[in-house]
């Protein structure tokens, strides 16, 4: 994932001067004190990342510190898959970066839980802040949420393109970011999988990239069309 590059592109597209880490500021993922009363450390990244003591049990660990969800999910079942006669394809159980997103968004782990403990509370003053109760629209609940969501955590490779000719080849198709990189490089994870991060960059500025959606907010459905040759 080209985090820095997407910041650059966003900046060039919109012609605004960036702060060095300003994208995430004042968005839903900015957990500084004025926005998240429980984050006494008043840092921006500390709920998700830490320089030390990160969770090495995670296979995918971008210096990750947030407590990881243990939930199992009802998944999206593919409809037509490769041909109309194909059997409904079950996509993968969430792994990689999707598991990181779901650690807050499935509503089972407190937003302010890091390494298994509630972050920075004074004698439990603030308690657990849960997604499901406070932020209903952003909750993807384990039981139902992923059944109605775009498939994630499955390998998108030439083999899949062979079965579904209406997918673009991830190894050769260039994305609209303007960096001349392929789908595989920019949108898929190290294992070649589609994840939440294929469509969302959790660090984008939501004033210009509503709901952290890549490519200038998916204007003209360019995000969908980069992979789907429809």
């Amino acid at each position: 994932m080209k985090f820095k590059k997407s910041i650059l592109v966003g900046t060039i597209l919109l012609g605004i001067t960036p702060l060095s880490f300003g994208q995430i500021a004042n968005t839903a993922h900015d957990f500084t004190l004025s926005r998240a009363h429980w984050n006494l450390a008043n840092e921006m990244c500390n709920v998700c990342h830490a320089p030390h003591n990160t969770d090495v049990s995670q296979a995918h660990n971008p210096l990750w510190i947030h407590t990881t969800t243990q939930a199992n999910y009802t998944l999206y079942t593919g409809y037509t898959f490769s041909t109309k006669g194909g059997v409904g394809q079950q996509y993968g159980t969430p792994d990689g970066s999707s598991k990181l997103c779901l650690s807050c968004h499935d509503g089972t782990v407190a937003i302010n839980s890091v390494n298994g403990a509630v972050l920075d509370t004074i004698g439990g003053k603030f308690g657990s802040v849960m997604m499901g109760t406070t932020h209903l629209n952003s909750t993807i609940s384990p039981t139902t949420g992923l059944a109605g969501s775009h498939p994630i955590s499955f390998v998108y490779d030439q083999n899949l393109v062979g079965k579904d000719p209406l997918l673009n080849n991830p190894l050769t198709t260039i994305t609209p970011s303007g960096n001349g990189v392929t789908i595989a490089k920019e949108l898929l994870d190290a294992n070649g999988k589609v994840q939440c991060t294929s469509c969302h960059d959790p660090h984008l500025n939501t004033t210009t990239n509503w709901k952290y959606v890549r490519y200038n907010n998916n204007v003209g459905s360019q995000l969908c069309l980069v992979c789907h040759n429809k």
Partner: protein
Amino acid sequence: MKYIKIILLIVLIVSITEKGNAQSGITNSLHNFSSASWNQWGSNGLGGTSATSTSGRIGGQICAPCHAPHVYTSNVSPGSSVIGPMTSAPSNAPLWSHQLSAVTSYSTYSGYNMDSTALAQAAGGPVGTSKLCLSCHDGTVSMNYYRTFSASTSGIKPILMSAINGGASNLGTDLRNDHPISFVYDQGLSQRTNNGVYDPTSHASGIILGGSATNGTIQSDLLEGGTLLQCTSCHDPHNGAGAPHMLVKSNTASALCLTCHNK
């Protein structure tokens, strides 16, 4: 001289027809709603051409009227106008986000000479993907009722199929005058019709997708779940073949009909 002129004329006509051939892909089809006046997320809708975070809408969207990356429950429940949070999203492949038609009693084709077993299946009315098509084409649901937009969204003026292009694409709820859909087309039907329709499990579909032949059969390429004949047996809503009327393949010399009918 005259002869040459005629040849030239023919060449010209052929090349024009060739050029006139619609290009494939949804972008080049009547299903490209990116600038439709009723598409709230289109370039002429409330979304505008650029991202507007304040209204929470995005412009120029092609997929949005039908699909959502995350589906909110109730705008897809039949006839519902209530909007629910992501927590209660149903399984609704293919990520369908357009409000479904509440109609349950369609009048269906009652075959002149149709196989009674297959017909019995059809009598229940449309199921599966055909219901997705009918969520616009039966003329009862407004085109712009998708995602979180519904009758109760302020500023939404309903636009029904009857208001578009003189209602040419409005099938209504009386489907007696339309080709039967949602029935099982299997080897048995082929046998019972004395091979009047080909055996779908072995007869080639002749479908070309993404530029190359699928080498599939009627069953694998044209029947939903390998069994049901649906609207999508003849039409590709994404215009994959670039054939007129978004057919799955050109019907020149009735080639599409003859894919299944042994006539």
